[in-house]
């Protein structure tokens, strides 16, 4: 079936199986491979994208359910080629190791900061608690998001 939706600000269409997930649509249908599949069951958060501004596990959303809706993926944060403030903070703070959780982690952080520009460390930890990371122990990820919060509002907030 053909699904048409707005991805990172552009209207895109892709032909997918009726059973395909939003994750499959993004990765296979549109070639946006920045969003990762770590479990396929909504348990690891690596596939987190923003659907109409809200973080969702894209592996749990049927592609068909996204007809006409708006999706923001990791590729949409730095379209101009410049890193956005969260990406820069992750890179600077050492919040990246193997990098596989990073896109989903950044999208969860983005959603938090759009909604709550001045979160506490506890609120940050809560907001990313559905995103598993096996490398960092989360400390530097929380550090990075705290740095961004202190810089002022992020785009989209």
């Amino acid at each position: 079936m053909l699904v048409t939706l707005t991805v990172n600000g552009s209207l895109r269409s892709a032909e997918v199986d009726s059973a395909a997930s939003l994750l499959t649509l993004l990765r296979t249908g549109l070639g946006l491979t920045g969003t990762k599949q770590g479990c396929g069951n909504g348990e690891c958060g690596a596939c987190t994208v923003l659907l109409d501004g809200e973080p969702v596990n894209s592996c749990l959303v049927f592609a068909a359910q996204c007809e006409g809706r708006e999706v923001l993926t990791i590729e949409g944060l730095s379209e101009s080629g410049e890193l956005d403030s969260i990406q820069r903070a992750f890179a600077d703070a050492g919040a990246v190791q193997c990098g596989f959780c990073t896109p989903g982690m950044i999208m969860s952080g983005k959603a938090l900061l759009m909604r709550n520009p001045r979160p506490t460390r506890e609120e940050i930890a809560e907001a990313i608690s559905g995103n598993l990371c096996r490398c960092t122990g989360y400390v530097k990820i929380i550090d990075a998001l705290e740095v961004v919060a202190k810089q002022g509002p992020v785009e989209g907030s």
Partner: protein
Amino acid sequence: MGQNALHPSGAVGAPVRRVDADDKVTGRARYLDDIVLPGMAHAALVFPGVPHANVRGVDDTRARSVEGFVATVTAADIPGENQVGCVDRDQPLLAGERVRYSGDAVAITVAESPTAAREAARAVALDLEELEGVFDAEKALMPDAPRVHEGDNAYLQYRVHRGDVDRGFDEADVIVERTFRTNYQEHSYLEPLGALAVPEDGGTITVYGTMQCPYYVQKAVAGVLGIPLARVRIVQTVTGGGFGGKEDVPNEICACAAVAAWRTGRPVKLVHTREEDFYRSSKRHPMVVRYKLGATRDGRFTAADITIIADAGAYSTLTPVVLFRSVAHATGPYEIPNVRTDGYGVYTNRQTTGAFRGFGQPQTIFADESVIDEIADTLGIDPIEIRLANCLAVGKRTATGQLLEESVGLPETLEVARDESGWLAKRAGESARAGSDGRAEPGGASRPRERFLRGIGVGAIYYGVSLGAKGLALDASGAHLNLYRDGSLRIAVGGTEMGQGLLTVLSQMASDVLGIPVASVHVDHVDTSVVPDSGPSVASRTTLMTGNAVIGAATKIRRTLAGVASGELGGAPDEVRFEKGRALSNGKSIGIEELAELCWVRNINTAEEGWYAAPESTFDDNGQGDAYAVYSFATQIAEVEVDSRTGEVHVLRMTAAHDVGRVLNPVTLEGQLQGGVLQGVGMALYESMKTDGGVILTPDFSTYILPTSLDTPEISCHAIEAPYSKGPFGAKGIGETPAMPGAVAIANAVAHATGMRFTELPITAEAVRLRLAQEETA
């Protein structure tokens, strides 16, 4: 992070930003499953559904009718040898005759999509004659236990025998003996296993994959295809975590993809789902460790008698190297004159076990560090004092009789962790045992014990860096450096980046040797066609081995440049300095890019090979010898609060002090420490892959519990620098040690808080609560 002052003048030691960070934060980094090739087909594995059976037939009639079906590959289709055993040759790639565990692949299906390939795999009918299985290493030792292979289930034994153990126990005033048990721990790297095999011109094949050890994969692929190594090229893709789990298992994944590609003539991708990954990948060995330790009244250890039973699972895989390390290190980082350690590797019909950060040591560390605390308690000696009194130091000998001549920062790690954690005050007296925040049950009925119990505990460890005496034969690493005419440098190495930051620290090293900015250096992921076999990226050896190879090659280039520079500037070639992009000599300077251009104009080679071989190591029949060239040391201290009503253990704070030889990059080091600490928390409190008769009961992250951001304690990291003369800039390996002492430090803290000693991990809320209940009724 606290660290000793060794002030960096160049890139080494500075908090250089990761060179791969931009790719990873933008989603540009290309992991295996991100690669799509024209004409690519997809593979899936046919699982047996039972753990032990004879295979009588494979019928793919129904699979052929699945839309998009391409091919079925069985053992009979393997052109070379149906064998991927890494150390022992006991493991067929496809179980054509006999299934030995539920993750054994009987066949491979190939189709136009991953979905169709899996549907086809499910449609393959297997005719299996089920056999009785054995699912417990101790039961597998019984004479009447079903045999997993032809020989005895107890197929492997190592020992370390030193001194006179009986006399040592006679000299002891106190002896503690306990049996400890640990279960499977799953690596849970976020990127599942995967491979993409591409048949290419000239009868060659290229296999891309997520992996730690491309040269192992090269050998496995060449073997199953029956073609020479020269026709097999392995390219490591950006790798989403390893922790040991991508050491040998990628051999199997890549070989499956290769056989399927060879058979179909098409590029074939094989990517595991998370559940398949649980079934197929190796785990941390479940171990039973019987530990007996004697000490004199003043706290001097006199003898240790240790038996280790390691569940190898269905195939030997890396158990020989892992068990060697367990046995060699079983006494912990202490000088004990009389030692008898016997370790057994045992086959069962369960998931295979292999390398996992710590490599066979966290299980024995749990035993030795627990027993030491009990001895200290019995003798009324502070746990850190008793460790300081017995611990290894320069001039002391390990259990294998190895004299330590340099780079032993263990005592300092104990002292720094003690002081930074506020150990003495927190350990002292009963006041430490109740929460100081006055939290109490509302209603305040009188209670037999405080609701919240606080405790502090310690664990200390040592880790032989690199492969040691019983590693696979090759313990050397190569590098290929090419300085271009514009002064930029491209580096190819044989060691893999899996998230730990290798590409960054190698860039820093080359930058310092050649005086060029880190931004002028690019390091590639491994391509086996470029760099000679460099062994595996395991055992905390990569920074050391690959780093030395890079430094070797960079030094050759520097020598070339120095010759040209001295000709241009005057002065002796060996007095030319390289700093900030310039060569300095005779009071004058010239840019590196100008020197590189001059070389190009004058037909002077600026590409060089580096090669570094590990110092020789030895291990005789009694386990005596210089088992490893050098050791890394660490101490971690855990502070916990136990809720006596629910049994929940909250880790409040971890203090980690690690002797790393030399800090190469404080940010990436601290990140590795923090991540390792949390893996230790997971092992201590949450992680346990449960199985029943070969079925995994916890094959996903809903049932296999990993620590989340809400489970991370405060982590205080401290680097101790006891430089290693043969290490790159004095550095030693740091990959494994962060994940090693934490679990037992938590167990010791729980013992301090509750007075109860746990001999099994994980220490779940349930385990604590039920023990407390037993005590309350007793």
